């Protein structure tokens, strides 16, 4: 038993280390550029857990038919996805600096022709529908892969999310796992007092989903929740991940102005130093 705990601890340590690496990559790739920091930083642990622990995928064979699929429905957080794909080996980390530049494969929002990117998103509210189509395709082909769709809480203002939600539970798409980045902010500011989505868990339950809540920055909680959703469920599952917008860079945390912004030279240094030196 002790051995097992310690091996889990090692996994958590490795994943947290990766998360710090990704945050540093984000800061570096933003040099001189606007970047959607807030919503990218809030999903780092979620992505790290999926790509470095949970998902069946092979960066050397990105079109492997049996692979699990991940769709970033909140496409503006794509810098975090690019950093994770690079660290996983889909393309060199050095390529991250070309983000949003002329002829770069790293487009401003996800494009399915970029290696490792499964669906073109960016106009909010569409990724869940695309993910459910993938599950239907898998069923026809007799495949058992999972499709993970990451949606934002602000994104759940879009009616299309709820069309898709109804569809997924009606078709009992139990191989579909949605993770909601519940950082309580949309672009303009806090959702509270504007068009908020609480009680969000009740809404998904009312749409016949299995609902779990976790701390979205705890790799341990995320892993346990994802594993739990896979056990004999007949319904699709949503994991509502409580997160902090801008997580990991103190002057960005819970600050709407860092939804999409550019670092000054001073801020750049301060962000990197806060993230510490990690062995790379």
């Amino acid at each position, binding site marked *: 038993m002790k051995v097992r705990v310690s091996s889990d601890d090692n996994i958590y340590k490795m994943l947290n280390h990766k998360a710090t690496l990704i945050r540093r990559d984000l800061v570096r790739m933003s040099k001189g550029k606007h970047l959607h920091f807030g919503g990218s930083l809030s999903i780092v642990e979620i992505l790290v857990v999926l790509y470095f622990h949970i998902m069946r995928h092979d960066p050397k064979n990105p079109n492997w038919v049996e692979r699990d699929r991940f769709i970033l429905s909140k496409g503006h957080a794509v810098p975090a996805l690019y950093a994770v794909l690079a660290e996983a080996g889909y393309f060199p980390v050095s390529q991250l600096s070309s983000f949003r530049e002329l002829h770069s494969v790293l487009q401003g929002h996800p*494009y*399915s*022709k970029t290696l490792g990117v*499964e*669906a*073109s*998103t*960016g*106009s909010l*509210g*569409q*990724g*869940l*529908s*695309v*993910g*459910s*189509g*993938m*599950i*239907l*395709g*898998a069923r*026809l*082909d007799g495949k058992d892969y999972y499709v993970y769709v990451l949606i934002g809480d602000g994104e759940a203002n879009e*009616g*299309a999310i709820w*069309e*898709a939600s*109804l*569809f997924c539970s*009606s*078709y009992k798409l139990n191989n579909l796992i949605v993770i909601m980045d519940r950082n309580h902010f949309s672009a303009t500011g806090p959702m509270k007092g504007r068009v908020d989505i609480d009680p969000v868990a009740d809404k998904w339950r009312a749409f016949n989903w299995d609902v779990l809540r976790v701390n979205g920055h705890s790799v341990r909680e995320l892993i346990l929740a994802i594993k739990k959703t896979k056990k004999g469920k007949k319904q699709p599952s949503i994991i509502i991940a409580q997160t902090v917008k801008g997580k990991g860079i103190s002057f960005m945390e819970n600050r709407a102005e860092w939804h999409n912004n550019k670092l000054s030279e001073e801020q750049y240094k301060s962000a990197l130093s806060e993230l510490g030196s990690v062995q790379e």
Partner: protein
Amino acid sequence: MNKAGDVSLAFGKALVEIGREDKNVVVLDADVSHSTRTYMFKEEFPERFYDVGVAEQNMMGVAAGLALTGKIPFVNTFSVFAVARVFDQIRQSIAYPHLNVKICGAAAGISLGDAGPSHHSLEDIALMRSLPGMTIVIPADRVETEKAVKAIARYKGPVFFRLSRGIKPDIYDENYEFRIGKAVTLQEGKDVTIIGTGTMVAKALEAREQLSLEGINTEVVNLHTIKPLDEGAIIKSAKKTGCVVTVEEHSIIGGVGSAVAEVLVENGNVPMQRVGIRDIFLESAYTEDLMEYYGLSVEDIAKSVKRCLEKKSLIENKS
């Protein structure tokens, strides 16, 4: 042209046939499968048919997902909902990644005349034409519908397939060979060219007969593919006859008339007239009554031909 056939039924049957030929063909429908005739596919291939309910936005995304797994989704609803209502989903999730989705807009134009403007689809060509990489096919009769369904199923990429409904006069026989992007000269002529699409092709042929009684020799071209546009055929016919009339069950803005004008203005400008709905919302009435009143009758086509010929003779007299 005594014979006629049901174009919607031809569509339904053709879907079943391609379903038999290719197990990757899947069909989605937004709660109108009795109108679109996709129920025929559902009866034969229930496991490859998805009733998505009254949720068109979701339907487009689901189709994109299916296409990403190698399926060939045919999505179906009334054209007015298949395009305008879900244009962003088509643009973002289907056209931008150039996915192999066939968007079938049933009862296009004023097929649903008495349902009123909420159900008239007179902007769909204009919208879809603006999307890079989108193919737009509009069959003119039963045979062309059947052949075109098979052709778009074999073609890899996004397609907007714009369908009318009900019984329409036969234009082609079973030996007709349909090719995406290749306009068909149905009748040769030397005085004027009518370029028609969809249900208006039969009316163009009727107008040709009337005009021939007055000694006017009309060329009739069936432009069944609006994109990619057969520019060569348009330019060739325009140069031959020296004036062009376009006819379409669509707004004169952004549809076939615009597409043809765009080609001709850069390639030997000739006088043109556009027959179509003149930038207004219509009203509820039977389709034929709307066509008579709002300028889509055989007589309207004949009148436009004469106006075009006048413009042509003015130019010829000047030079």
